[in-house]
């Protein structure tokens, strides 16, 4: 079974780029353009990993995390331009990715590593 990845980002071009790259790597990708929609998909689809943008209109990434509550082995990669964000969320299973990323394949690499580690556990 393919690992399921949920992308929550208000920037469509970023969602599209990430989806293309991750799908090419064989992941099952679902995407949401805002926090509310993302939260719904998170609860319905049960992703293995969520790529979550912090700064979004409406429900922010951090609020989404709060709503979700217990992660239940779901891995989260927070994406933000503000380097201070990862200090705010100190939670096991939550990772941090600084935007803008120079190479989109670095993102794929990070995703792979996290999922690989979780698979080991």
């Amino acid at each position, binding site marked *: 079974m393919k690992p399921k990845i949920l992308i929550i980002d208000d920037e*469509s*071009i970023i969602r599209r780029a*990430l989806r*293309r*790259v991750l799908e090419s790597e064989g992941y099952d990708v679902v995407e949401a353009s805002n926090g509310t929609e993302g939260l719904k998909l998170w609860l319905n689809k049960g992703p293995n990993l969520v790529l979550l943008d912090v700064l979004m209109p409406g429900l922010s990434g951090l609020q989404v995390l709060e709503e979700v509550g217990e992660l239940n082995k779901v891995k989260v990669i927070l994406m933000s331009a503000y380097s201070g964000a990862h200090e705010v969320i100190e939670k096991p299973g939550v990772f941090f990715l600084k*935007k803008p990323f120079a*190479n989109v*394949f670095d993102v794929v690499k990070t995703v792979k590593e996290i999922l690989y580690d979780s698979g080991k556990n």
Partner: protein
Amino acid sequence: MEQIKVGLYKTHKPLQGQLVDLLKTQNQLQIEFIEVQGLLENSELTLCIGHFDQAQELKDIKSSWLVLTSAKDPTGWVRFLNHSAVVSLLSEDVSPEKILTELGRVIEEQVLVAGAGELVREHQTRNLHLKNLTIGLEELIEERTEYIRNAKQQAEERQKKMRSFLLFLKDLGPLLTLESALVKIREEFRSIPHVADVFLMTTDRGSELWTLSNKTLKSFKDLPLSFDSKSVERNSVAARPILANVLSRPVAKVMSLPFQLKTFKKSWLLVEHDAQDNELQPVLDFIMERIQPITLCLERVTSHDKYEKASHEWESVFDEFQDPITIVDKEFSLLRSNLTLPGGGTSKCYELFAERTSPCIDCPLASEVPIRAGGSSAEVRIKERLYRLTLFPILDVEKRQMNTYVCHYHDLTREREIHSRFIYHEKMLALGVLAGHVAHELNNPLTGIRALSQYILSDLKNQQETTFYQDLIEIEKGTARCQNIIKSLLDFTSADNEENKAFSLDQIVEQTLTFLKTALRSVSVEEDFQCQDVLTQANPNLIQQVIFNLVNNACQAMSQGGVVRLKTYHDNKYSYLDIEDIGTGIPTDILPKIFDPFFTTKKEGQGTGLGLSLSASLVKKYGGRLELVKTDASGTIFRMSLPCAKVSHET
């Protein structure tokens, strides 16, 4: 008829009786006969009848005698007739009638003689009296003459005194300074004996003593001893040590004369003299006679001095005042100003000051509205500069009119400049914040574009020869550069929020150069970097701003293009960056001002005027220095030094 007394000397008794009887029969003569014993003169007797036997006896008789003699030959007696007082000589044999007749004749003669003698005597007495009178008169005349001469001399003396006094008054009259007054007073007092010198002393409003040294006024303040005497002291014991102390020399006697001036309530004229007590009165008289005019004169000169000083003070304030101040009349004629202006005379203020032919636009004096007592002001543009011109009317007390005005020009140009620069700076700050937002917003789509490009590129790995693939590479590169620029911009604008950290100066310089591309377009950059491995402790973003400013200035110093040499080097304590241009140097007149806030040579909008001043203060904040190393016709070098991070020494 007067009773005639006749003396009888040694005559016969019968003769005496016969003569008396005979006299009774005649009523012509009234004769009283008095017997005399000697020949002594008896002034009561008019005549004596004597009987002499010897002529020798006659030599002792005086006065007039009728001599009877017994001598037969009287020739021997005749010589006595000539020399003695014998008026008649008869023989004793003659009859008593004859004697009586002779007596009558002699008496008559005698009376006549006596009358003439009387007359002569009277004349003589009168002459004597006249003589005495003449002598008295002469004496009187002499006395009078002497008196007149003395009186004249005294009058002359008085006149001379009065003349010298008047001359002194006349000399005192026009004097205007304390110095000249004291010179005159001293000269006057020294014209009399015993006076050595004159001083003026006051204890009003702090003690002070004035003296003359070579006709120059010398003042001593805060006298060592106090003095207070309300009466004239001929030999003041208290004043003497003061003088001696102040003059640093022995002082003879000192006479102190108190007087009151409006300017100095408690004042004394001190006169140094060497007069003995008995010689002092004329000196004192002389001085007392002059004390009133002297007081008046000193009153005048001291107030004149005071007003002169006040007026001088006011004038220097007026002249030293930074802002231009003028006094003009209603017709704009310039009466006075604290400016050194060309020309003068009856020129108008606008001609001289503004170089105009008509009053300045908006000048309150040119408007219909009357000038207010508290001042009327307007903003007036004069030769490219903006002034706040305020006019204050001056009341002419005599004419009860306001015909002249004080004009105060306050230069607003600089204030306006600073204000506009301040606004510009605020705008720049806002722009920085805005740029930050824009940069963030741009980041997202850029990231997406780049990521997509990268994905497509990887997807087309086997079609690398196609132009499509090559085009995409350019897109990816372009977005990469955009991201770099945005990163720099964000670093630049969010500088204040960031912490100090250790960094290499070289790295910061290289980063800064990336967004100076526009400025560096017309110049070439020569780099000599030797601080790659040396870390500096500071806020890198702020330092970046400083470097940005310095390089930007260097580029602007060479409008026709040139070379900017950037050189980094270090010693044990500091890392250095030298920024050198090959421009024409900073003009010497603005050199002292280049580190001043808001000073700029650039046109509005090109520089904030905060560049160098802010840069210098930033660098200083991190323990470094920003200095001008060299500026001349061959170019300018600025040097920035920053302390090396301690970490780098330990590693």
